[in-house]
């Protein structure tokens, strides 16, 4: 079913729809540049400390569950696929497909968060690996391990927060898509939300090896 409202007009500050579309895309890319720097501060700190305290950080890293991490990576990659397909459906004006793919994306995002919360973080809490809340690691270089987990929880926490925001945005879009708001002339919102979602995926693509795999698991 193709979106068929009366003539779609650009917002008053724009000359035409094309300018509006380009502005929206550029705006989101510039915003993603700020997000690169936002996560970048954490990556910088992690890089420094990892090189200073290699044994401790390796020990900490080895206490993370690679299977769950890899599973979560796969979940997010699937969600990127469904998100890209949602954008495509909006471009083609396929209302039901947009709604379906958006809901699938949200479900996968939710799955990611649930796996993280219940299987990983909760487990870490029980093991006494959460600095500030419950940290009882008694092995060698406890301070370095504690520092590792500071970064682990901050980085995955900030990432998860971005995912939750993404889920919020997607839920708004699902409602709008259901009402038939998106079509070939009018899908900026889905596309820019897609850019944001993929970015959150890219961050995880780096977090996974940096936190779980660095230095090897042999």
């Amino acid at each position, binding site marked *: 079913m193709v979106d068929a409202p009366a003539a779609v007009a650009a917002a008053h500050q724009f000359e035409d729809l094309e300018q509006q579309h380009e502005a929206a895309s550029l705006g989101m890319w510039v915003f993603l*540049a700020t997000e690169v720097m936002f996560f970048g501060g954490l990556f910088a700190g992690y890089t420094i400390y990892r090189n200073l305290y290699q044994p401790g950080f390796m020990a900490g890293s080895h206490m993370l569950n690679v299977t769950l991490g890899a599973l979560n990576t796969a979940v997010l990659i699937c969600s990127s696929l469904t998100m890209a397909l949602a954008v495509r459906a909006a471009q083609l004006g396929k209302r039901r497909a947009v709604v379906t793919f958006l809901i699938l994306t949200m479900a996968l995002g939710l799955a990611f968060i649930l796996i993280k919360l219940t299987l990983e973080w909760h487990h870490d809490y029980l093991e006494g690996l959460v600095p500030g809340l419950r940290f009882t690691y008694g092995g060698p270089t406890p301070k370095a391990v504690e520092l590792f987990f500071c970064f682990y929880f901050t980085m995955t926490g900030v990432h998860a927060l971005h995912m939750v925001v993404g889920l919020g945005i997607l839920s708004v879009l699902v409602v709008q898509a259901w009402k038939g708001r998106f079509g070939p002339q009018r899908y900026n919102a889905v596309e820019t939300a897609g850019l944001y979602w993929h970015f959150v995926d890219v961050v995880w693509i780096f977090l996974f090896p940096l936190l779980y795999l660095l230095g090897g698991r042999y």
Partner: protein
Amino acid sequence: MATAAAPADLDTRVHYLNADYGIKSWLLTTDHKRIAILYLVAITFFFLLGGIAAVLIRINLIQPNGALVEPAAYNKLFSMHGIIMIFLFLIPSIPAVLGNFLVPMMIGARDLAFPRLNLLSWYLLMAGGILILYAVIWGGVDTGWTFYTPLSTTYLNTNVMSAALGVFVAGFSSILTGLNFIVTIHKMRAPGMTWFRMPLFLWAIYATSIIQILGTPVLAITLVLVALERLFHVGVFDPAVGGDPILFQHLFWFYSHPAVYIMILPSMGVMSELVTCFARKRIFGYSFVAFSSVAIAVISFLVWGHHMYVSGQSIYASIIFSALSFAVAIPSAIKVFNWTATLYKGSVSYQAPMLYALGFIGLFTMGGLTGLFLATLAVDGHVHDTYFVVGHFHYIMVGGALMGYLGGIHFWWPKITGRLYPDGWARLAAAIIFIGFNLTFFPQYMLGYLGMPRRYAIYPPEFQVLNVMSSAGASVLAVGYLIPLIYLIWSMRYGPVAGPNPWGAKGLEWETASPPITENFEHTPVVTEEAYAYDE
């Protein structure tokens, strides 16, 4: 050219100020001009607050053993002064007030690319401001505006969290404003407005926006880490648990050094507008000035370590940062030379905006040169954390940025309000500000060189004379700042009505009515001439 009706019908003509009435039409506006006014009111309020802190500081420093407050309270005063002046006044000032008002007009657009995001930026600044005010009123913050660890994370029991959260929120205001400007300048220029026909003010705003976009997020995440460390006692920056306080300083100054260029670049942009108009000449070396703006923005990100020469940073890193700090002075100097060359053989008139511009050029040059002293490792070892640094940055931020802001406000006041202010009073105020400023801050160079540390509530008696001079200057400066507040507000009601172009200036904003209609232009302008075509 001018299509507006005669000035006399200011009240009958519909323009952006009277197009709609009521508090909702202001608080829910998406008109960039109204949002600029909202910012103007807000930052004036913050400036007054920061100014009060400054007055209390200078009163305290009249006597060597502190005339007014205990050291603990003094620490809160200078922290409050710095946080409010930097994050709530200087960083928004020109971009959010003049930038918001002028960017769409100068490129011939009806509004910014994202008007609702623009309004959100204002609300974020307000929210940040409220949080910072809460921190200040409910016991104060005494870390200094720099929040150095582990003092801020572990050893203080003041309102660090709320102040940090306030700065965090205000930072997003800055980011979104920069984002808006970048997209607008890239995508919404009028037909014929090529990059090299843009007024240099826009180049400056564009360069500033790049800094806002790429630098502010790093401060944001650093404050998050400080907050986590305070809340959960985790040791990211605490040496006792393996953290490194210098890492905090790296992350903090990675933003905060470029931040000072956020404060000065727009002011430099204003300079290009003022100098060309009041010398009635084209700018000398347009492309040099344009590229210098971008060069300053880029190189500014490479020099942050010059704040950390004596903190424990490795000397090799310090050498690299020192060399790069010398490099960043070059584009600034190029601009000063070009403005000076623009003045040469120009037909110079000395209205208030020009007085501010001339003051800027002289004072910024002095501040910039002392910056080079500080960039030199050997000298900095002697004057780091002394009043020399305080003198240096006040010459740039007050003698530079604030003069540019005031000059710009005076220059565009007729456009914004449709009224002329009394130029006699304006020139008097400019002169008082110039004199008061130098009396306040020049002695501080001397104090610093003689060894008086900054952020100290008390000092050895031999420094008293210079301190009293500085405090006396501060009172003159305060008077100088209050005068424009009075006549500008007066002019909104009683000032003569201004036509579309009272200065005879070049630029798209002068080719529409004063005040402009909500849509800025009756018809989208088409640009056919270069910028600053004064000898046409």
